[in-house]
Each structure stands twice: as C-alpha cells, then as structure tokens.
C-alpha cells in the first residue's frame, strides 16, 4: 500500500458520490430518529387529546339555585333541636323539601312545559342534593324554619345535556330522561336558575354510587394514591438504588450474583396481579395488616416497582467510566466513598429515569390492588398519616377502573377526568425528577 490519498484534489464544496450516499444514509438515519420521536409524541398527543376531549368537561358541573323553606314540621317535629331527633329525618324527607321547592319555583315562573309531571320536574335534581342539604342542616340546626337559597347539583343527564353528551334525540330514547325535562332545564338555564361552574367536588369529593354520577369525586382516591406513592417512593427508591449499587459495585461476580441478577429481571416480568396475590398472602393474611389500606397497597407496589428501578439503575451505574473510579480510588477514597461521591451522582440521570418510569407504572396500576381490597367503593376519607395509612382508601387508577365499568355514561366523562388528574399527579411527580435529572446530566 502506498500512501495515496483516495480523494486528493476533490473539492469540499462538491460531495463525491460515496459521501453523497453516506450523507443520504445519514439523513435517513436522522429522519428515522426524528420520525420515531414524532411518532411517539404524536401518539401521546393523540391519546392526551382524546383524554382531554372527553375528560375536561368533568371539571365543570351544572348546579341550580333553589330557594328552600326548611320546614320545622318536617325536620324537627319536637322543635327541641335535639341532634338525635334531627338525625332521624332521612334524606327522603329532605328530598321532598327540595322537590317541592323546585316544582314551586318552576311553576311560579311558568318554565315547565305544559302537562309535565311533578315527578319529572323533580327528576332534575341530583340524588346527592338531599344529602348535601341534610348535612348542612345538621351542622347548622339554627337554619331550621328559615328559607334559604341552596345551591344543589343538577341530575347527571341534565349536566350531560349542557355538555353535549345528551341530546334531545338521545333523550327521546333514554328511559332516564325525557326531552321535556331537557327543555325545562334549558329554560331554567336561560332564566339563570341553572348554571355551570368549576367542579371542585370532582377533585375533593368522595366517590358516589351509580345513581349520582354528578356527585362522584376523586377525593379519597387522590389521598389514597398520594399515601401509596409516598410509601413507594420512600421505600423503593432507596432500596432499589442500594440493591443496584451492591450488585453492580460490590458483589463478587459469581453464580449467586448471577442468580440474583436473573431473579430481578424475572421479577420485572411477573404480572402485577401476582404481586397482588403475594400482598394478600404476605401482608394481609400473614402479617395481619388491614384490608383496603394504603400501607398494603404501597408495600405491594413497592415490591412491584423495585425490579423496575434496579434494572435501569444498574445499567446507569455500569455506564460510568472506570477512569473516574480509578481517580477516586487513587487518592485514597474507599470503594464506598467512590461510589457515593462519584459513581452515584454520575449515574443519577439514569436512575431517575428508571424511577420516573417505575413510579409512573406504580401510580397507574390497578390489578394488584384488586386482590388486596383497594378496588373498592370507599366514601370516608382516610385520616392523616401515619394512622391514615391503615384506613381504607381507594386510588386514582382504581377509581378510573371502576368508573369505566359503570353503566351511566356520565361516568365515562368522570373516568377521563380522573385520567387527567392522574396525569397531573404524574406530571407533578415527574417534574421534580426531570429537573434533578437535568441538573446531574453531563458528558465526560
């Protein structure tokens, strides 16, 4: 071989055929990259779009103002304002008050279409309303006897009408609502009796039964999810990182560590419901922890998340160049110091990515919760931690799961709304990790 330059004399401004080909390949490669990212982002936007499209309306809710006379004869026959007596009046009694109030108001104003049955008019009120009123009265017994303006929820289908989910045509076919009722609702809205506003209850209120989709909220689920994620975060990240440090940096390379390695990869492949089986057996039946409690949920999700954190964490630790470890060891740092001062910070971005994905999965997981009793209808808020960890609670994905199963289509909107809340929850959780990750990212 002589040292003959293969491309001597060619101009840089003109690309030769081979370079053209290589550049074309380069462009193609780059395009694939861009296309795949675009594909991913598009898919995300599409999914988000569909979620937002069907879920945003859950954050608004139709309510109506009713002028109710809190008749003492109905609410407190003895007139002694004895709480025990007051409590004897059930929601049925309150419902009657509200219905009368509405019917009176509507007929007075002449809003109701001719020949509409009082029962149908009353049907515009949510079944939740009597409970709201009852709670208010029980809290302020002095209201009895007065006439107050009370803001109550409208029936879910009326709400759906204003959100475009229910139409006159569908109402004609619907056994739960009639076009007349919708006409009346429209008239009430025009008269300013009904209005649509921000639905705080959706985020703070507990779940409601199938009969009152308009009242269903995420309060208990958000608390439950927050408690569980707290447990998962506090346990799985340190344990996962510790395990990966041991396996990657300290463990002797022998069959035992191979076994642990294979075992961890395998745990990542175990379907989440199996972790539910484990949780039921280990935490509830063996350790006697309470059913439906965030603590059990958190522990189960921790076990499930661990391998999903360990695997990326190990890869990240492995990718730290040995020269940096040498440098630290060379100035007399112990292995432990080397790892904690140099290797770990450099591996942090990868570890955080693993954590982001692992926790995102844990946050959205339903199947294991099915077996430990968290897929449940829970209306009472769990107490503040630590006791709250042992109270029954629900979780956001559980709420989504159960709402998607319900018959009333109004719950579909709620489920999508809940997904939005879940995504916001996730965004909040992730953003911290993303910021941290960017801080630690560097090339060497």
């Amino acid at each position: 071989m002589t040292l003959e330059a293969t491309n001597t004399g060619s101009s840089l401004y003109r690309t030769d055929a081979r370079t053209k080909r290589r550049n074309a390949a380069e462009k193609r490669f780059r395009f694939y990259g861009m296309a795949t990212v675009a594909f991913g982002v598009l898919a995300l936007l599409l999914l988000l779009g569909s979620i937002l499209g069907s879920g945003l309306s859950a954050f608004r809710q139709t309510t109506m103002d009713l002028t109710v006379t809190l008749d003492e004869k109905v609410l407190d026959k003895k007139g002694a304002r004895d709480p025990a007596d007051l409590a004897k009046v059930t929601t049925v009694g309150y419902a009657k008050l509200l219905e009368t109030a509405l019917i009176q108001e509507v007929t007075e104003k002449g809003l109701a279409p001719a020949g509409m049955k009082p029962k149908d008019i009353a049907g515009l009120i949510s079944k939740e309303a009597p409970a709201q009123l009852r709670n208010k009265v029980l809290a302020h017994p002095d209201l009895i006897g007065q006439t107050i303006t009370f803001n109550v929820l409208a029936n879910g289908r009326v709400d759906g009408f204003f959100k475009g989910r229910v139409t006159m045509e569908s109402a004609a076919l619907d056994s739960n609502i009639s076009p007349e009722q919708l006409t009346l609702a429209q008239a009430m809205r025009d008269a300013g009796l009904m209005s649509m506003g921000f639905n705080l209850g959706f985020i703070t209120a507990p779940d409601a039964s199938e009969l009152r989709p308009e009242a269903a909220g995420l309060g208990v689920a958000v608390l439950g999810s927050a408690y569980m994620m707290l447990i998962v975060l506090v346990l799985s990240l340190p344990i996962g990182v510790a395990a990966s440090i041991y396996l990657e940096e300290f463990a002797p390379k022998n069959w035992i560590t191979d076994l642990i390695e294979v075992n961890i990869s395998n745990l990542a492949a175990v379907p989440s419901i199996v972790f539910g089986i484990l949780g039921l057996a280990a935490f509830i039946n063996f350790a006697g922890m309470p059913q439906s409690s965030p603590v059990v949920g958190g522990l189960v999700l921790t076990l499930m998340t661990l391998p999903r954190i360990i695997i990326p964490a190990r890869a990240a630790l492995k990718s730290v160049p040995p020269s940096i470890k040498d440098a630290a060891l060379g100035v007399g740092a112990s292995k432990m110091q080397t790892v904690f001062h140099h290797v770990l910070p450099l591996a942090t971005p990868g570890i955080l990515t693993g954590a982001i994905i692992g926790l995102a999965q844990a946050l959205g997981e339903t199947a294991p919760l099915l077996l430990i009793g968290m897929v449940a209808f829970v209306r009472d808020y769990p107490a503040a931690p630590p006791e709250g960890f042992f109270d029954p609670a629900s979780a956001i994905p559980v709420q989504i799961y159960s709402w998607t199963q319900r018959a009333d289509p109004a719950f579909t909107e709620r489920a999508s709304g809940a997904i939005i809340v879940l995504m916001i929850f996730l965004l909040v959780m992730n953003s911290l990790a993303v910021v941290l990750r960017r801080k630690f990212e560097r090339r060497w």
Partner: protein
Amino acid sequence: MSLGILTLIVIALAGIGYVIGRRLALKKAGGDARRLHSLPGYYGQSVFLFTAVPALVVLGLWILVQPALIESRVSAHLTSADIPEGSSLSLVMSDVRRIAGGLDLIAAQGALSEDALTNMRADLSDIRGRLATVGVAVGDTIRPGVFEAAKTYRDMTAAGATAMSVLTLALALAGMAFALTRITAEFRARNVSETFVRWLLIGASLVAILTTVGIVLSLVFETVHFFRLYPLDKFFFSATWNPKFGGGSDLGILPLIWGTLYVSFIALFVAVPVGIFSAIYLAEYAPKKIRATAKPMLELLAGIPTIVYGLFALITVGPLLRDYFAAPLGLGSSSSSVLTAGLVMGIMLIPFVSSLSDDIINAVPQSLRDGSYGLGATQSETVKQVILPAALPGIVGAILLAASRAIGETMIVVLGAGAAAKMSLNPFEAMTTVTVKIVSQLTGDTEFASPETLVAFALGLTLFVFTLCLNVLALYIVRKYREQYE
C-alpha cells in the same frame, strides 16, 4: 411502652451516641481530626450503629419469638375439654388471642379496673357482649378454660413487653458504652460503618430474593391444589383453553403462552426500533430544548393508564386494522386482534426503550465520539458502530424491561386482542395471554376451590418459570456478546 416509642427512644439514644462519639474521637485526637484514622463523622456513625442495630435486631427477634413462646406456654393450660368438636387448638388459640386483645382494650378504655378483669369469670359475666362493645369479634360463646387461658396470655404478654423494653434499652446503652470505649485515634471507624452500609446494601438486594420466595410460596400451594383437581399433562400439553362455568373445562396453557409470545413480539417489534431510534435522536441529534421537552413527554406514555390504551385499541386501532387490512386481505373480520394489541402496547413501551437507552447513550464518553468523527465517520456511522456497541448492555436491559412489561400487561390485551385463546399465526385474529387469564380466572364469579379459579395460580407459576428460563437465556446471550467489549 409502645413499640413505636421504644424504637424512637433507641434511635434518639443512637443519635446522642453519634454526637458523643464524634466529640470523643476529636478529643482523643487532641482536637485535631487529622490524627484520626477516619473522619470524625465515622466515629459518630459507629457509635450510632452499635447503639441502634443490636437493640433493634433484638427487638425485632423478640417480637417474632415472644408470641410463639407464650402460645406454647398458654396452650399447655388448655385441656381437651376446651377445644370444641370440629375445631382445633389453633382456632382456640386465635380466640384466646382475640379475647386477650379485647381485655386489653377494655382496660385501656377504663371500663373495668385491672382487678375486676382478673376476677372476671367466663361463666358469670357476658364476656362476649363486653368484648363486642370494644369491637372485638368472638365467634362463639366463651368457655371458662379459654377465658382463663386468655388471662394468662395477657399477663404473660404484658410481662414479656416489659422485659422486652428493659432488654432493648439495656442493649442500646451497653452497645453505646462498648462503642464509646472502642474509640481511639486508631480505631477504624470508617471500616466499621462501611461494613455496616455494605450489609445494608446486601439486605436491599435480598429483598428481591425474598419477594421471589414470597411469590413462589404464595403460588405453589394453590398450584398443587389445582393439579390435584386437574391433570398435569393436560394443562401443559393441551392446545385447548376452554373453561366452562360449571366445570368440565379444558385448561391447556399452550394457546395462552403462544398468545403471550405473539403479542409481546409484536409489541417489541414496534417499541424496540422506535425506542432505540428515538433514544439515538434525543441523545445524539436533538437540540437541547427538544430533548428537554420530548424526553419527559415520551415518558408520559408510560404513565398513561393502560385502560386508555385499551380503549384506543378497541375503538380506533382495531376497526382501522380490520377495515383497511384484515378485511381486504381476507385475513379475518375481527376487530380485536393480536396486531391491534401489539401495536398499541408497543406505543406504551416506547419510553421504556427510549428513555433508558437515551441515558445510557448519553453516558458514553465523548472521546469515543471524537475518535470516530476524527476519522471522518458520519454521525450515524458513529452511532451504529461505536456508540451502540458501547451502550449495548444498558440497551439490552431496557429492552428486557420492556419485554417484561409486555408479558405482564392485561388491559390492552383484553380490549385490544380479545379473550379468545387460540393458536394461530394470523396476526389479525383475536388471541389472549397468560396474564389476562390469570386476572380473569382469579376475579370471576366461580367458586374459589374450582380448577377454573385455581388455574390462575398454576398459570402464574408457569409463567414465572417460563420467564425465568427466558431471562437465563437472555443473560447468557448478553454475556457472550458483551465479552468482546470489555
């Protein structure tokens, strides 16, 4: 003393030990930290550990052992007359425990004095009703012998608790004293605390092992139970999966395994190329700003609840594939198909591959890139021939994780691929996976002790072993391939 308070006291003692240890070490060195073997903090740590660890370990052991000890003592008090027909000693003992707990509650509420409790007799007072008032359920009326046993049990537990507190605190103090006497300027405090941390790390790795043991244990009994009801060979080698409500089902696992592999394969077929190309683009090509937004965005894909994906598969992708591919090609008219589920699942798995690989690619030293560019390689050549091979182990890890996720997914498969267990090559046919069947068999309405339900455990265990084999294989391949790069 309650357990929580005891633990807190021990930790507080250890904290004090830390401060004293640190100070003492500095004093021993005449105030000059340079004359110490280790940094002063390590001396504090060693005292902390000697104070807290033995005490807490003994505390833990005590909690584990005490009930067993007391129970064996108490059960000696029970005569055969106390054990009703058809019941067992363990059942009676659980009653004993419950009653004792109830008595504690009664005492705690101050409803009855200790003396009154001691004098209470099962045949004279309505203990069941009393207990019920404090929320303790007792299955049956209480026999006198059982009640006496419960009282003994309660006394012994109380005595044990006192002994435990004393012992724990004594140990903590002794540990602290011992650790403090050991402090000299030459004492290798760093080694001590690092050894401890090392054990902590080992402990953390053992959690994974324990989880596995737990999973196997929680599956194996019901699996054995299942195989008593259903022949082993039919389960493993039959190609029909056809459970029936009333029994007489065919429960062959083969079509499920096939479906699992097929769906996962398609999902990876989507996720791996897309993920790797995205990772390469983000790490190597994308401007900083794009990377900073696109990466977290892709990660959101992993956080969208799978039900959303499932509905997307069912409502959008399925009919699309059916109307534009399957039907014109004459490959079927099912709107749910392996392909639908695989495609949609692939989208969900993108971030597993892309984000994790992106970090690994980013960690490849810049000097390697420079070396390649300096030779006149294009960026893509550099990526393909230098960076990807160097990042390979991490990328394989990411792919394995994605594959694991694919195997474990339920919702997308249920809605996207349907519930029919079939063995077919046609990607436009409905199929189902092992995981889906585990969920559905476990949560249905049939009786629990029937093979139709118990098969879930057998499926779980089989899948566990199956993926274990796959993982061993993967490890073997990665090792073999990696050798040339290290």
